């Protein structure tokens, strides 16, 4: 009897120990950020299992909001989408930076992201992958016309341009119109004024647009078939297309490419924090980060990962970004609450306009 008791207790303890060290990590991320080979290596090394769900900024926040921050153990929204949703819905939990190996991060990027994701003195996010959005175009056909976002409205390209009806388009057009929307983030009246200008421009531009793209693959098809020659898109999209057609590439617009950083955050009701910290420390190692760069097409905040990145990608990056273009990147600051309602109304009106 006693023996059985002992055995059961041992088993129970073993079982408990097992769950404490080997967890299931439910990762809510973007396509390409958790490639199969990296997941396999991580599972082998740590014993954790990883369940990957691919999503985008809006859906990540909507999913976490619907469950009050449950259902996932690690999420990767952009750094500008952390402060607002956290203040509004409380869907994240503070990140304990001491559990991370800070030496793995590029110091300036880590500091900037932590500053941008601090609410009430508590840090909620650390950086992972960064990139920009700007112009993807066929330089042979549109290179002379398109230098900035607003050039997409040039009549010479009627019916051959495309962009998304989302907030990056509004911000990009505002910069191209000579405004600084980021400086007006805290001034709702001023921001509204800028957005009205953008709305007028986008409405006027509408006849020039073939279609508003909504998914990366859709845009790829449009560009590849030649139906669209210039568009507003992510840098990786342009670089991928560059492999098939040397004329197509990513160009940083005159008013500046828009820079984003996707982060790591812990959802409020996440149940595998240790596994989440393990994952962050694992993927930030230079070699692993280079594997993610190869799969996602974007560079990471991992210090020293560039050395391991493919030469071809580095060459494309340098061609798209001369030094002055890098300095001109406009990094998204955290979005204050209320602005998205203004933007939403503008986007709806543009879509419905004739």
């Amino acid at each position, binding site marked *: 009897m006693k023996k059985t008791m002992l055995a059961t207790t041992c088993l129970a303890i073993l079982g408990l120990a097992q769950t404490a060290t080997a967890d299931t990590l439910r990762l809510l991320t973007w396509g390409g950020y958790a490639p199969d080979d990296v997941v396999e290596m991580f599972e082998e090394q740590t014993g954790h299992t990883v369940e990957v769900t691919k999503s985008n900024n809006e859906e990540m926040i909507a999913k976490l909001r619907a469950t009050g921050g449950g259902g996932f153990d690690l999420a990767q929204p952009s750094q500008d989408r952390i402060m607002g949703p956290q203040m509004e819905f409380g869907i994240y939990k503070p990140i304990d930076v001491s559990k991370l190996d800070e030496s793995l991060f590029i110091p300036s990027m880590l500091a900037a992201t932590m500053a941008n994701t601090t609410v009430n003195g508590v840090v909620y996010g650390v950086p992972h992958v960064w990139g920009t959005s700007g112009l993807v175009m066929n330089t042979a056909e549109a290179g002379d016309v398109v230098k900035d976002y607003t050039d997409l409205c040039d009549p010479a390209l009627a019916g051959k341009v495309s962009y998304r009806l989302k907030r990056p388009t509004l911000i990009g057009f505002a910069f191209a119109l000579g405004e600084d929307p980021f400086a007006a983030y805290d001034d709702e009246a001023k921001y509204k004024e800028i957005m009205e200008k953008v709305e007028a421009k986008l409405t006027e531009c509408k006849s020039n647009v073939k*279609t508003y793209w909504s998914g990366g693959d859709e845009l790829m098809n449009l560009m590849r078939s030649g139906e669209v020659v210039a568009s507003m898109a992510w840098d990786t999209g342009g670089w991928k297309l560059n492999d098939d057609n040397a004329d197509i590439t990513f160009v940083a617009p005159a008013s500046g490419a828009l820079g984003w950083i996707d982060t790591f955050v812990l959802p409020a009701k996440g149940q595998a924090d240790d596994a989440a910290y393990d994952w962050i420390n694992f993927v930030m190692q230079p070699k692993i980060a280079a594997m993610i760069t190869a799969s996602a097409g974007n560079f990471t905040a991992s210090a020293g990962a560039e050395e391991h990145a493919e030469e071809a990608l580095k060459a494309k990056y340098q061609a798209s970004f001369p030094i002055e273009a890098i300095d001109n990147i406009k990094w998204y600051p955290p979005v204050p609450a209320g602005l998205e309602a203004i933007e939403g109304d503008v986007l709806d009106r543009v879509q419905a306009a*004739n």
Partner: protein
Amino acid sequence: MRSHARIGFVLLLTPLVLWLGLLIIIPHIDMLLISLRERISFGVYEPSLAQYQKALTEPLYLRTFWRTAVMSVLATAITLVIAFPVAYYIAKMARGRLQQVLFMLCLIPFYVSELVRTFGWMILLRETGLISNLLQWAGLADQPVEMLYNDAAMMVGLVYTSMLFMVVPLVTTLESLDDSVVEAGYDLGGGGISVLREIIIPHAMPGIVSGCIVVFMLSLGNYLTPTMLGGKDSLWFTEMIYNQFIVRSNWELGATFGFMLLVLSSVIVWGMLRLTGRTLQETMG
């Protein structure tokens, strides 16, 4: 004995009650409550009718609302006009094997998902697509023709998506029509049109009404087809609901839109039944 019967009754009823309660009634009550509040500041909400006021005064929302309703009615009408001869042929003219084969042909496109079917239309209609190339090859067009991203393309997609749901109820009702009744109509001196109007359509009415209701609901609630085929001008009401919930994080307005859609579809279905002088019971039974 009686208590046995009662237990059986309760057991049989439980799944239905759970289904209705958990999946339909409770979420709708929650939606209604969400739609009846207003965001004051971070995490602070107050009950108010502001959302309904906004939805009913903003011209854009109303325009999209009516556009979606009118286009859905139009899609239903077109589907009926195309499906009726098809159903009549399958039910009355085709015999034996041919009948089964034709019915299967209607069914087969629905073996694949709606997304794939819509992509199929995109491949056909796009500027570098099959039809455009065919026209150029035949010399009917001297440059690529863009047939995607407009209301006509969207209508094609909607009608195609809902065709089956019109054909099936029509075939079922038309099959029950006795051939001798049609024959008697002709014997009594009726022409093709008067037989159709006086005999076939009245008999097929339950099928027409239930088919129309299903197709109308499907079109009204469709998200994929208008978004993918309709392009830059086609804002569908469901797309606005998605935008409010997911993109804008504005659940209050999204829930309000959801309720407006629910009321609209209920009113139009009720109107359809009134117009044809039928009750819901007759149509569904």
